[in-house]
């Protein structure tokens, strides 16, 4: 068995460039203006949306990272589920995907075959087709997809358009970043790792399908920036939100590991980034870490009118049993994120 992890300095979405650092660089790029580009990177949304005609838009996204698990097939599944997720988070349906591969010359090719097979499984499950790809040698293995989907331009789920009075739903439990950190430190128990891998491999397709029968005001997926950064992004300029601390779903062992300081660099970067945007008050250290925890292939985080939130939650819970109503949207307050 080759060791995928030992070739990597950091894996999964935890390896993302910090949100603060990233926006500094992006702000220097020229602004592109094309009325057909309905969603571009200026709104830091999950994927780009480009209008083709009155009824059709294409949604396009790319995502790749280095392994956070030892098993190559699981890694392939997780990377593909993560890349496909951005299409679901916009309200789209994936059409086709391209493989992106970086792989060390020194590693066995069998493992690469397993990674690609894992990815292909998830592309099949999504209903999209694999249509090509690109591969290069690199010191660290990396894998992901460029995905193109279709979308009704009148029903885009943007990430920053919630309405005051909405309730917020999170579809997957938090804590996969902390559990993968514990795994790296050889301190994670098998059950916890299983729960985390199963969560990361699960497509957001099923939750999104349930959502299509309801009015959705905003939606994003939780990534390496962690719940709080995504929540803040969602509030935009016009609203604030209150999160219910006691309602946040998380993988049980992740809470214990966080309390034992099995913490990640990305979690600390997220914490620094959120300074001044949230008052943590007397929140326990472990729960703080969970709210900052970088999620790989995290759940959908969505905002829907209160009148239908409970019914929507019940529908989502048929496919994501740990989904919860985790907060609500308020008129703009002194802080974007409040905790209750």
């Amino acid at each position, binding site marked *: 068995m080759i060791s995928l992890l030992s070739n990597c*300095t*950091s894996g999964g979405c935890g390896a993302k460039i910090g949100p603060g650092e990233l926006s500094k660089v992006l702000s220097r790029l020229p602004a592109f203006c094309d009325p057909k580009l309905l969603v571009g990177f200026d709104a830091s949304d999950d994927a780009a949306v480009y209008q083709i005609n009155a009824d059709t838009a294409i949604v396009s996204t790319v995502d790749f990272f280095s392994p956070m698990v030892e098993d190559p097939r699981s890694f392939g599944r997780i990377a593909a589920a993560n890349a496909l997720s951005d299409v679901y988070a916009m309200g789209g349906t994936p059409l086709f995907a391209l493989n992106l591969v970086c792989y060390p010359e020194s590693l066995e090719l069998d493992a690469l075959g397993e990674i690609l097979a894992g990815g292909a499984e998830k592309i099949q499950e999504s209903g999209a087709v694999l249509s090509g790809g690109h591969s290069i040698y690199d010191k660290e293995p990396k894998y992901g997809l460029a995905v193109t989907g279709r979308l009704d331009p009148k029903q885009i789920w943007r990430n920053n358009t919630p309405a005051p009075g909405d309730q917020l739903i999170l579809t997957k439990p938090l804590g996969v970043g902390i559990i993968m*950190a*514990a795994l*790296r*430190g050889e*301190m994670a128990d098998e059950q916890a790792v299983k729960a985390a891998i199963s969560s990361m491999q699960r497509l957001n397709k099923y939750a999104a399908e349930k959502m299509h029968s309801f009015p959705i005001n905003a939606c994003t997926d939780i990534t390496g920036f962690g719940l709080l950064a995504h929540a803040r992004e969602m509030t935009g300029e016009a609203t604030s939100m209150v999160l219910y601390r006691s309602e946040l779903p998380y993988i049980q062992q992740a809470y214990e590991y966080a309390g*034992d*300081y*099995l*913490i*990640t*660099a990305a979690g*600390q*970067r997220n914490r*620094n980034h959120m300074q001044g945007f949230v008052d943590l008050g007397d929140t326990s*250290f472990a729960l703080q870490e969970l709210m900052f925890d970088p999620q790989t292939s995290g759940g959908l985080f969505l905002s829907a009118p209160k009148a239908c939130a409970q019914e929507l939650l019940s529908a989502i819970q048929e496919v994501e049993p740990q989904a919860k109503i985790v907060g609500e949207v308020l008129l703009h307050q002194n802080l974007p994120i409040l905790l209750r």
Partner: protein
Amino acid sequence: MTNIDCTGQVCPIPVIRTKKSLAAMGEAGGVVTVLVDNDISRQNLQKMATGLGYQSEYQQRDNGIIEVTIVAGEGCAVEQQTIAIESDEDSGLVVAIGRDTMGAGDPELGKILIKGFIYAVKELTPLPTHVLFFNSGVSLATSESNSIEDLRELEAASVVVLICGTCTNYYGITEKIGVGEITNMYGIVTAMASAKRIINI
């Protein structure tokens, strides 16, 4: 003194290695210095140190290397746990004694009163969770103190007796302390902060 080189390692590895070294020192405590090559690791180490009640500081070295020093005082982490467990279901009363006499007036009378006070505390039901000694109060906890037997009885009845280490050093009586545990300001503040009621002398 333990040195750990965590350059080239990413979190949580530096934190895990440091935590293991600190744990290996046991109640005696000690000093751990850790070398890391990025500021986020430094922040995570200090977050852990603060959370466990250790003091820490850092120095920027050449080539982007940061040296983090963590000082584990005697029984710091252990005390913390005791506090957490005990504050759940007990009196929540903390007695803080910052002087060796009681009340303003003749010091001789003050000394008689403080002895009587500590004796009376021992008779309380339920007992306080903690008795804290700082500044000249620490002299009451030396083996020469005429309150030492009362304090030992309190300790035997699971009352946590905490003595300010800075103060015993200042007065040069660290060797003479005959009861309780030496702690730092963090231990004192934690005990006060977890109290439901405090008696200040």
